[in-house]
């Protein structure tokens, strides 16, 4: 595995000029650092630019002001060292699960034997043994998403980006997969950057939560999560952090029994 590098986002801005409308500032001066091997979440309401930021980091979008540096070098385009998991699993319907995961190694240059071994290891990692020859339509939503995670990790990237990966799943599956994700992260040691609108998920999984807000899309706060593992979702510290984050997002949670502030 490549030595995971430090990701530095420096004053990144992106705006769209649409005809007849005021300029849309999707991102405005976003800056943060991601230490190698850490788990960072980007949380914020719709339109805060978190998904845009993710796409800039993975290299799907290359037009922006500012710098995104990995190992001190400016990121230019996509690379197998930065994997991504989308909200939809995007497994190709005409390939079996193992063929789909192997797609992540299509350009790795590894030998067929090495590729097959790595694919098998990652299928075991996400707990899908026995489903190697299944087609995506035969898998449940949670299983397909686990397959997508395996595909994102199979090329052993330095960073795995996750764009609301559990958003399309039901609540119970989501909780289970959050625990899976945490286990996978501990085993693989890869840097993970998660975009989510679910604050609970962010606090449960991350070392650091970066809170964003919209209009213009910007970073409001960085909060270090210093809860001990395993994380208790109903502990008072958890709730305190959640309140802090929601407050930064501009959402004031109701105090029990109090009237809504004007």
């Amino acid at each position, binding site marked *: 595995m490549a030595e995971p590098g430090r990701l530095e986002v420096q004053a990144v801005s992106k705006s769209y000029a649409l005809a007849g409308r005021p300029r849309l500032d999707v991102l405005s001066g976003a800056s943060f650092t991601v230490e190698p091997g850490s788990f960072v979440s980007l949380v914020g309401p719709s339109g805060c630019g978190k998904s845009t930021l993710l796409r800039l980091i993975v290299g*799907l979008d290359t037009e922006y002001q500012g710098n995104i540096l990995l190992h001190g070098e400016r990121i230019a385009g*996509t*690379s197998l060292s930065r994997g991504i998991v989308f909200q939809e699993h995007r497994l*190709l319907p*005409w390939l079996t699960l193992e063929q789909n995961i192997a797609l*992540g190694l299509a350009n790795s240059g590894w030998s067929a034997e090495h590729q097959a071994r790595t694919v098998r290891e990652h299928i075991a990692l996400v707990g899908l043994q026995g489903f190697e020859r299944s087609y995506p339509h035969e898998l449940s939503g949670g299983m397909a998403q686990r397959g997508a995670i395996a595909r994102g990790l199979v090329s052993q990237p330095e960073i795995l980006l996750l764009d609301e990966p559990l958003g399309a799943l039901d609540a119970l599956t989501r909780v289970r997969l959050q625990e899976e994700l945490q286990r996978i992260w501990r085993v693989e040691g890869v840097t993970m950057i998660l975009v989510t609108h679910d604050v609970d998920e962010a606090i449960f999984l991350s070392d650091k939560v970066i809170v964003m807000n919209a209009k213009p899309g910007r970073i409001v706060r960085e909060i270090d999560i210093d809860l001990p593992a395993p994380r208790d979702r109903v502990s008072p510290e958890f709730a305190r952090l959640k309140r802090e984050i929601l407050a930064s997002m501009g959402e004031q949670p109701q105090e029990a029994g109090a009237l809504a502030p004007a």
Partner: protein
Amino acid sequence: MSSLANVIDASAPTPAVPSLAAWLRRWLPQRSLIGFALPAAILLLWQLAAWRGWVDKVFLPEPVSVLEAFWKMLTTQDLAVDFLASIRIVSQGFLYGAAAAVGLGILAGLSQRFEQFLSPTFDTIRHIPGIAWLPLIVLWLGLGAPAKVLVIAKSVFFPVFLNTLQGIRNVDKSYIELSRVMTLTRWQLVRKIILPAAMPNIMVSLRYAAGLAWALVVVAEGLSGLEGLGFLIFRAQGLLLTDQLLVCMVIIGGVGFLIDRGMYLLQRRVLRWKQGYEG
């Protein structure tokens, strides 16, 4: 609540005459056999018409004499030769037309400029039916097989080309993004993503074109042929050999059916990953 259910049950009338569906279900329990019911009924009706003399034997000979004519044609009149001639022409025409269509369709799908280069010419030629081309092509290539192969290839080409192109244009953008993240080369993108995604469109158009090609070969042979099933049909018409006419029609229909079924099975095999609306 239970009393209401009782009232509803009592008021539903029991049908005195069983519905057609119920009757069919009773007499044809196996779903797959239901397809044989109609041909059997038609055959029965046909035989009945011949026995009772409802129709003059010149216009509609009885099934038995059709079978006799078939045997006669097969053993003494080289029916097999004509049959194979037709099969050969349709196979060649279909293969050339389909190969050219898929190839050019992919190139046009990958390059908008190439598509625009071809578009006005193709859209014009496309509307001239293959049969209208036949006289000109026969003038150039003579009455033999090449002219028919060319006309069939042309007629197969356009539906398959259009569907290939459309299939490629319909490829989900999220898959293209996926290929960028996987850093796939253009060739890998085509082979692993674009072609398989376009395959349903391509397969359907191939199935349609195969049927079209077969129907065309009969017309082409009838219009300007010296051999083949189409030629036999028109010869039988000229000689008022209605039983031979029917033999040819049955064979043509049968082969068409087999071609379609064969293509359908091929489609199912190639597209076995596809989960769609099963009805």
